[in-house]
């Protein structure tokens, strides 16, 4: 690996020198500039070459491209803004992006490729599976990393069942973790909605869904919310009629569905067909569900938690939404907001590492970034972020209510 890295650096250097030579000679030929001007040209050239390279690892194509592109947009937007303001420590930030196509093996290849290209830190990965693969790979390098969207506990900690074996010190995240959402929604159902009975239906093939469902049940038992039915389905299932018919027979007051929007869109009409009338509760995977569901009335009155709401009225959110719309012509979703925050947290940490005077990319430099991230205490778009001992952010969840065929920001809980 090391030898390859040296070779790669040599090749990159050769290319850079070659290019600058071509650029300079081109300059001379075209303008026949006086010697002094050529010198300043060369100077800006070296200054421009002195950039901070930050890696972005995300699935930009493939089945989960939707998340990857949302994340990439958020990251690009933050660093564009930062570069416009002068960058970090007078240096521009150069993003090196690798498309891992949602594949864990390609993600590890991508990680190594980014390391070989000399990035000082990485924003990514996006989904849990590839992220975990990369985190394990990154242990030897101590590469500072932050994910905007991988919510499984095993992303920042080595887990043995529910027990934390070790914390991956270099890995942070700007989203909250799976169990956190289940707990929030169980407490919300009991304390805010005043529900006494609940049902849970979850995806056995999705760690995210299983994690949410388990923590919902644990918290429900704690707060005195009776779980009358627990049903599950496999990852590619489209038919939930049997499960929903079982649940309908128990007539729970709320039903918790921790899964992604496409499953919710499939389940909503089937729940109605099964004669199930209950308040639906969801997790952050519900984001954008109204774009996919055939009839929004089917989800009327449902609540789900989210890392962020574009209708939040805090200053940070207003500015973010306005700038995002100007840049991409669309309302940013949760992934973009969390990615923007991830970039912000990472950039602030890099700034401190730069200030420490350590050599970019050295072990001390990386350690300085990690220490700075651990000490994060700042207002981000998705809320005020500090980190707990497991490198998970401590923040409140935005509760979104579906009302009149639209999502409404209910408040933070």
């Amino acid at each position, binding site marked *: 690996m090391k030898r390859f890295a040296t070779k790669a650096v040599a090749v990159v250097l050769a290319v850079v020198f070659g290019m600058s030579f071509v650029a300079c000679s081109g300059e001379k030929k075209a303008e026949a500039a006086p010697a002094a001007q050529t010198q300043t040209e060369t100077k800006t050239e070296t200054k421009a070459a002195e950039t901070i390279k930050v890696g972005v690892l995300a699935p930009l194509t493939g*089945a989960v*491209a939707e998340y990857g592109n949302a994340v990439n947009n958020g990251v690009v937007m933050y660093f564009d803004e930062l570069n416009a303001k002068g960058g970090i420590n007078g240096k521009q930030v150069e993003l090196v992006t690798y498309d891992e196509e949602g594949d864990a093996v390609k993600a590890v290849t991508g990680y190594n490729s980014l390391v070989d290209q000399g990035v000082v830190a990485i924003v990514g990965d996006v989904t849990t599976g590839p992220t975990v693969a990369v985190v394990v790979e990154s242990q030897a390098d101590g590469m500072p990393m932050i994910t905007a969207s991988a919510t499984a506990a095993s992303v920042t900690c080595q887990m043995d069942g529910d027990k934390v074996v070790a914390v991956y010190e270099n890995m942070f995240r700007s989203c909250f973790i799976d169990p956190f959402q289940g707990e929030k929604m169980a407490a919300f159902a009991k304390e805010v909605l005043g529900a006494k009975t609940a049902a849970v239906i979850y995806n056995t093939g999705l760690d995210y869904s299983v994690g949410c469902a388990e923590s919902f049940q644990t918290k429900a038992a704690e707060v005195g919310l009776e779980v009358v039915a627990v049903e599950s389905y496999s990852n*590619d299932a*489209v038919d939930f009629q*049997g499960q929903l018919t079982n649940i309908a*027979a128990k007539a729970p007051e709320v039903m918790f569905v921790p899964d992604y929007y496409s499953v919710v869109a499939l389940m909503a009409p089937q729940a*109605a067909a*099964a004669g199930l009338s209950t308040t639906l509760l969801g997790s952050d995977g519900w984001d954008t569900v109204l774009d996919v569901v*055939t009839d929004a009335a089917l989800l009327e009155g449902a609540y789900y938690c989210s890392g962020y709401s574009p209708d939040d009225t805090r200053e940070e959110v207003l500015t973010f939404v306005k700038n995002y719309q100007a840049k991409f012509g669309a309302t940013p979703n949760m992934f973009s907001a969390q990615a923007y925050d991830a970039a912000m947290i990472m950039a602030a940490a890099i700034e401190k590492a730069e200030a420490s005077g350590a050599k970019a990319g050295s072990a001390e430099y990386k350690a300085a970034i990690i220490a700075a991230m651990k000490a994060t205490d700042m207002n981000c778009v998705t809320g005020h972020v500090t980190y707990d001992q497991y490198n998970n952010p401590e923040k409140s969840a935005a509760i979104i209510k579906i009302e009149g065929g639209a999502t409404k920001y209910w408040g933070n809980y």
Partner: protein
Amino acid sequence: MLFLSQCINGLQLGSIYALVALGYSMVYGIIRLLNFAHGDVIMIGAYIALLTIGAGVNPALAVVLTIFGCVFISVLIERVAYRPLRSAPRISLLITAIGVSLLLQNVTQLLFTANTRPYPGSAIIPSKALKLGGLSLSLTTIVTILVSVGSMIALHLLIQKTRMGKAMRAVSEDTGAAQLMGIDINRVISVTFAIGSALAGIGSVLFCCRYPVVNPNIGSMLGLKAFVAAVLGGIGSIPGAVVGGFAIGFAEVLVTALGFSAWTDAVVFAILILVLLFKPAGLLGRGVAEKV
């Protein structure tokens, strides 16, 4: 009452599996090819309906276009990918079919991205429900069951009563002898593909009305389950596909109703393994001695 509701759920699910399994079985019966691209043709059908209705085409016309679109794609696949391999070993055909399946999924993903989109199911079949006492029966369910059963009867008549049906049976029995008797093999095979994929088109509309989201992967699991149904019934056998489809639908719902919802897929694929181990010809299939 709970039992009755679950029976209807099984009937509904089974009728879709049966419809898709018919396509598998027909093609297998004629050229001994497991057409793994069948599920993806269903997915293509979903996109055709989605785009045409989105463009303001009358839903009834969109359904017709979907069916013709599926037929066109399938016949094209047969011409381009399968026909040149007619005399190649069967394993080459099988691998080609898997390749075609992946090609369709990836091309669709390139054209329309992997994003899940809503399917305008309620434009085709209004989302109404019939209430019978405590029993709620959606219009989609009723239409699905009726259309499936109707298609199966039509198919049965076609195969048993028409000249083309007779030719199909002949080709299925002995391709070489059929050719000697003056049957145009290529034409029969094309027609088989066309009919199988017309069923896929109908299946596509019914499936998507029931499960109204579309993405490039919707065909794969459906295709696999229908494949299991076809094997269970006896692959190559038309009544077998119907029996197998309903059996798998009921098995899934039964497992769920008994409270083991996490095990539905495991049970379905366990059935596949058990059938292959103990009755490889399936419930209604004919055992054919392998020539060595």
